């Protein structure tokens, strides 16, 4: 196994070169936006961790692994912030965390797309994120954006499934300030 890894590393010179980064939490955000009764609102998670390995020249060796503590959600509205962790939405008592891990990266029309799986509320489904990576002095910024269909994951069930009141397509965005490990 070890020999194979060395052989692979030699065969794919970039493979071992994809850089590992640490996220600087104070300058990073992870959140979403959706609509309620025709008005858009935004939410932010204050507790999450992300393991980022990324090299734009070596996407095959890149990987994102993100874990979000769902109870840390804030949307600027008390009623909403009380409802979201409840059983009808995130159900944090049973499913405290959401997990996104990439399965691969691809180029699409000049953009980099990160394909992965999202596990949310006990459901695992594919989710793709658009990646914007900008190297800068002392690290990089990484922006990702994608759409999560909340009903695929049973977020807002029963009465709340009415997408004419609560939008079905939730836009997820994250801005990460990265420092080399």
């Amino acid at each position, binding site marked *: 196994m070890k020999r194979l890894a060395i052989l692979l590393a030699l065969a794919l010179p970039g493979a071992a070169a994809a850089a590992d980064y640490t996220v600087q939490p104070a300058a990073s955000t992870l959140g979403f936006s959706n609509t*309620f*009764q*025709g*008005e858009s609102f935004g939410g932010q998670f204050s507790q999450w961790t992300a393991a980022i390995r990324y090299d734009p020249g070596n996407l095959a060796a890149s990987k994102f692994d993100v874990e979000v503590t769902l109870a840390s959600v804030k949307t*600027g*509205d*008390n009623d909403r912030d009380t*409802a979201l962790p409840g059983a009808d939405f995130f159900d944090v008592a049973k499913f405290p965390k959401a997990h996104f891990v990439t399965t691969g990266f691809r180029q699409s029309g000049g953009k980099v797309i990160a394909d992965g799986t999202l596990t949310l509320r006990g459901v695992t489904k594919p989710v793709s994120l658009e990646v914007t990576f900008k190297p800068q002095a002392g690290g990089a910024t990484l922006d990702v954006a994608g759409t999560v269909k909340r009903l695929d994951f049973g977020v807002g069930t*029963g*009465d*709340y499934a*009415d997408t*004419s*009141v609560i939008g079905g397509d939730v836009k997820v965005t994250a801005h990460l300030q990265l420092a080399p490990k």
Partner: protein
Amino acid sequence: MSLRSNDRQWGSVAKFFHWVIALGILGNGLFGLLMDLAHSPMQKINWLALHKSIGLTVLALALLRIAWRWADRRPPDEPMPRWQRLVAQATHGVLYVLIVLLPLSGWWFNSVTGKPLQWFKQFNLPALVAKNDALRDLAHGVHEYLFWFLLLVLVAHVGGALKHHVFDNDNVLRRMLPFGRLHQRNPSEGDQP
């Protein structure tokens, strides 16, 4: 019956505004008081959305009504003592103010709570003021008590109309009724209903 009012009775536009707004504001007021009967939070959200939509409709109709009343002629008052005329006019004035203030206070209350304001899922209206949790209870109280006040003034309005109808047997109520037939005090005048 003509669209415009004439010397004998209110026109169909004035009657339409009067009765539709009456029905809208009373129905929506009672609906508002029953909000807590909703059996789920989502049902309450939907009920409130309907309540707000109806309220906005009443507000739009009230403004149109005031514009129409300003442009339309109106039948002169039926013969009655001066004090009755003054009380009737004051009552009408207060009712006009209330049918505008009641929905406006709801809009204000909604703005203070920071909730969206959507008209029958068609379009959104902006907040009147910034979200302010400290004003929430006050705004709720103002909105609700304006309705109770409206009911109080309505007792005088309806009471006066019925008094004229039943005891004075004049046209005060008849000339506003949707299909009312006027007493012909002078048949040769030949008002065409």
